[in-house]
């Protein structure tokens, strides 16, 4: 597993040779969508290769390869809910889930509490401990050591956000959404949780900070099923899902 996403520059050269693996193609395109500068660069490469193959209006062989290989996993994931829809829980487990959901809703992520940080969570080791799940957010700026971001911390524009997450049973998956001020949005996962809180594993996801000042909101949905984690990010209610949010301020770059 990679702990970081290689920069688009590195992948584009291999893209132009048609040797990217499906996961690499998906990662490259996901990165290009989330990063305006890299997106423009991808478009330049695409235009050049289309011209080389003689038609600016038709995708080049490199594009066809990357798009086809990169899109299959997402298409199959969209088909999954029908198979997973039937409940697998016994009535006792359902009852326990409902109790857990009420506990989580009331104690852990109360939507209407009046504390200043009610809509945020606190990183491990500070403040209220999270309920069997943990998300840690890091700011990785070129040439600087990576640092963890606590509630209210800032990260430089253009730097990368990196993530680590952990959870105790029944939480097995986490999906992450990063939303900027200007509608820019990255949704990634669901990722399998590889460790418990305190032994969080890195997520295979990095997200560039926007160039404009402001803030981004990181939302993480933890669930016992990948579908439930994604559904929670879409705002669908599902018992037993924990949703954590943290705002990261955008600091002017160097």
């Amino acid at each position: 597993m990679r702990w970081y996403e290689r920069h688009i520059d590195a992948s584009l050269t291999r893209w132009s040779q048609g040797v990217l693996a499906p996961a690499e193609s998906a990662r490259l395109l996901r990165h290009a969508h989330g990063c305006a500068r890299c997106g423009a660069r991808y478009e330049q490469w695409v235009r050049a290769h289309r011209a080389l193959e003689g038609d600016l209006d038709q995708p080049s062989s490199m594009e066809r390869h990357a798009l086809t290989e990169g899109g299959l996993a997402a298409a199959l994931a969209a088909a999954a809910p029908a198979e997973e829809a039937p409940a697998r829980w016994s009535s006792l487990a359902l009852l326990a889930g409902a109790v857990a959901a009420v506990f989580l809703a009331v104690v852990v992520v109360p939507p209407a509490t009046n504390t200043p940080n009610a809509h945020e969570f606190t990183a491990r080791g500070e403040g209220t401990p999270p309920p069997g799940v943990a998300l840690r957010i890091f700011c990785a700026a070129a040439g600087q050591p990576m640092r963890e971001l606590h509630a209210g911390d800032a990260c430089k524009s253009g730097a990368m956000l990196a993530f680590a997450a952990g959870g105790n049973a029944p939480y097995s998956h986490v999906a992450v959404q990063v939303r900027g001020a200007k509608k820019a949005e990255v949704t990634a996962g669901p990722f399998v949780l590889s460790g418990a809180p305190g032994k969080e594993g890195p997520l295979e996801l990095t997200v560039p900070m926007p160039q404009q000042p402001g803030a981004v909101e990181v939302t993480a949905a933890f669930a016992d099923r990948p579908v439930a984690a994604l559904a929670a990010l879409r705002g669908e209610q599902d018992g037993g899902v924990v949703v954590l949010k943290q705002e990261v301020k955008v600091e002017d770059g160097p």
Partner: protein
Amino acid sequence: MLPGNDRAVLEAFRRGDAAVLTQVYRKYSPEVLRYLSRRFAVGGEGGTRTVALSALDLDAAHQETFVRAFRPNMRQAYDGVRPYLGFLLTVARSTAIDLMRASGRVAREAVPMDDAPELSHLPTEGRSPEEEALGTEVRALVRQFLDALPEEGRALAQLRFVEGLSQESAAEKLQLTRGEVRVREKRLRTQFTEHLKASGWLDTSFEPGRMELGVLLASMALCAIGSMPS
């Protein structure tokens, strides 16, 4: 593939069988890509005009088309009688228009005009002046690159890139082995990238060295976190 004379395939498709969905995806993905690459006629207050998806939007539209089409309700909605490609392209068209609306390339109230009879009278061009200029520039760069190649390199580029022959067919025409064609093509593509960088077409303002250093530091920090006792 679909529509199924074979009911078992249709049933497996509706159930969401991954193997069948993968076959459907691989069969229709090139058609969907080709369809999404065309210019779409849209009608709005300013009259009818044609717009095309950007390369990144093309990726998003292609993926979203299959994501929508493979959702359980859409799989059930396919009747198994009409050609599946037509069903899929209907999804692709609405996806493309939704994307262009979302990105502001067409007005929210714009409607696709592809089925309108007057469409055949529309001018087929429709590129913006900027697109035209970029197209001219990049075509000139390609011409420059091809002209500078030795004869065999030009012949390979012509067969593989322009005529779209497979490596096997190109090898046969050039009296080379497929392995030789593969190696020469890779070299050609590398030279093309270098040519684009040298000409300034590909901005090289990123400094990979710095980025690599940042990434290395990030990795080391995560390693340290991972090994800390809880």
